[in-house]
């Protein structure tokens, strides 16, 4: 029996004459998390004063030579393992020769023929099913410095702090077919690297950027069309917009029998279009050759094995485990494992408290707070331990769900122990039936007219009575008991 998934893939460009498929390949540049740069000992910290994290090697002074950072090698191997890829024990560093003001050597040390990591794959959870995206390769290379064009009308200013920072270039196969797939793919890559601790994936700080290759072909055609490369897109939103715009541009050209020039384009964030890069009159001839200042890199299989053993549980495995262990749906598990810190937080909470409540409070209330205050889970104003204490008080009936929300608000200020808050503020749930009865009787006797109306059919007024009870009990009345007792009292007609 064929299983039909809920949705089917439906991203196509409908031209005037034909239906077109969009083929996308991504080259993601991920900055390696390391203290120092790939070939020099300068710091890689973001946000430093211009040119203060620059050594003589980084600024390419005469006679300077590269010395490779062992940790960066390990980080790229770990990333390769996270991509289920082949690790190449033999790899070579090549020079990629071109001129640009932020490239002090006049070449970038990269890898061309023999990259450190070979083929791998990334699994995406799409609404229409799981999709595997092929990874072509991953290689190590130097990042360039930064050119600032808008501080001086006649000149550009160059900051080499970023020059020489280690980058992992992850090249996908042209398996992506929509802006949304790109969205999920980039997020997944980011998540894997954050789990591994090999890249912080901070797109605002430039730790993660991508070159997007886009081409189109008529649905049903087998051959790929001419592709254009959109360079240096630094947010997922822009990637999606750029793809959509570029695909439409290409479709229009092709439907009007015009050719597509294979070229490099830039995404203009101001008017959301792609345009040709003016400086690329001739295609770059990078004249790759092995860097004679370095030797080929030969890794021992024992190192690979050691790193493999040290790998943390990755998102896909964690998701499977969460589904089983915590009885979660795939959707719920996905949310939790998207960030290792979130899944860690969740597991910390459920160590001592209810799985379902933990899920709701975390992904509902806590996420809302974090979003509002623009914080990450590691900056959460409420600790996992305290959240579990709060949940336990709900479960044990010490406080109502409603009071819990109040306590939660208070906990945000300085992560105070909820038990303390409840004690200090006297928020314990009122569950003494006798005391509740007293209040209910009070409410009924003060609202005789509404009672009449209720008895004659206006059942909605029940909520009013509950509200009054809550008011008089300062919100502490146990809602289930209130419901029970109030119902009885109203029926029996005090």
């Amino acid at each position, binding site marked *: 029996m064929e299983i039909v998934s809920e949705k089917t893939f439906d991203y196509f460009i409908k031209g005037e004459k034909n239906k077109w498929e969009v083929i996308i390949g991504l080259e993601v540049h991920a900055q390696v998390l390391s203290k120092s740069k790939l070939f020099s000992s300068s710091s890689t910290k973001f946000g430093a004063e211009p040119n203060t994290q*620059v*050594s*003589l*090697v980084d600024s390419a002074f005469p006679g300077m030579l590269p010395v490779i950072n*062992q940790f960066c090698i390990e980080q790229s191997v770990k990333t390769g393992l996270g991509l289920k890829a082949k690790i190449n024990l033999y790899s070579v560093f090549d020079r990629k020769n071109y001129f640009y003001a932020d490239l002090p050597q006049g070449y970038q040390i990269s890898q061309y023929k023999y990259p450190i990591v070979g083929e791998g794959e990334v699994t995406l959870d799409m609404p229409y099913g799981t999709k595997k995206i092929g990874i072509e390769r991953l290689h190590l290379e130097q990042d360039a410095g930064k050119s600032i064009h808008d501080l001086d009308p*006649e000149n*550009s*200013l160059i900051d080499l702090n970023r020059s020489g920072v280690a980058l992992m270039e992850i090249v996908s196969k042209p398996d992506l077919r929509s802006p949304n797939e790109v969205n999920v793919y980039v997020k997944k890559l980011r998540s894997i690297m954050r789990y591994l601790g090999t890249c912080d994936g901070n797109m605002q700080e430039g730790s993660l950027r991508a070159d997007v290759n886009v081409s189109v072909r008529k649905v049903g055609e087998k051959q790929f069309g001419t592709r254009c490369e959109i360079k240096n897109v630094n947010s997922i939103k822009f990637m999606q917009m750029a793809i959509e715009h570029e695909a439409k541009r290409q479709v229009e050209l092709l439907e009007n029998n015009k050719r597509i020039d294979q070229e490099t384009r830039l995404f203009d964030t101001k008017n959301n279009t792609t345009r040709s890069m003016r400086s690329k009159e001739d295609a770059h001839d990078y004249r790759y050759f092995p860097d004679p200042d370095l*030797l080929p890199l030969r890794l021992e299989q024992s190192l690979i094995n050691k790193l493999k053993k040290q790998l943390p549980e990755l998102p896909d495995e964690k998701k499977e485990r969460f589904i089983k262990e915590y009885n979660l749906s795939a959707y719920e598990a996905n949310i939790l494992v998207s960030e290792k810190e979130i899944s860690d937080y969740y597991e910390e909470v459920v160590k001592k408290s209810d799985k379902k409540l933990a899920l709701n409070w975390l992904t509902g209330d806590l996420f809302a707070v974090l979003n509002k205050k623009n914080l990450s889970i590691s900056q959460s104003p409420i600790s996992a331990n305290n959240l579990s204490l709060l949940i336990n008080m709900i479960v044990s009936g010490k406080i109502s769900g409603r009071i819990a929300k109040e306590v939660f608000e208070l906990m945000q200020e300085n992560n105070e122990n909820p038990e303390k808050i409840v004690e200090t503020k006297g928020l314990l749930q009122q569950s003494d039936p006798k005391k509740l009865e007293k209040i209910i009787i009070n409410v009924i006797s003060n609202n005789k007219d509404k009672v009449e109306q209720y008895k004659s059919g206006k059942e909605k007024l029940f909520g009013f009575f509950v509200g009054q009870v809550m008011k008089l009990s300062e919100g502490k009345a146990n809602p289930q008991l209130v419901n029970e007792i109030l119902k009885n009292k109203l029926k029996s007609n005090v």
Partner: protein
Amino acid sequence: MSIDQKTVKYISKLARISINEKKAKNLAKDLTNIFKFIEKLNKLDTKNIEPLTSIAETKLHLREDNIKDGNIRDQILKNSPEKNKEYFVVPKVIE
């Protein structure tokens, strides 16, 4: 193989060296002669030979990930043709 002026101009562009017509002509001649000399290699069959990847027979030295450099901005900018306390300054790039 003969190197013509058009090729000389193309390579000069790649190498970011400006040359005038006269220079291009002379260089075409010089380079053609040099390449005639270099092309003696074509007589040699090297089909099954591995290229020499490194002369120094040793393992690539791996450095520990520690911050031991940087914070020498004055030194870095000292020889800069355009004086600026924080940046290197270059004529604008047209993108």
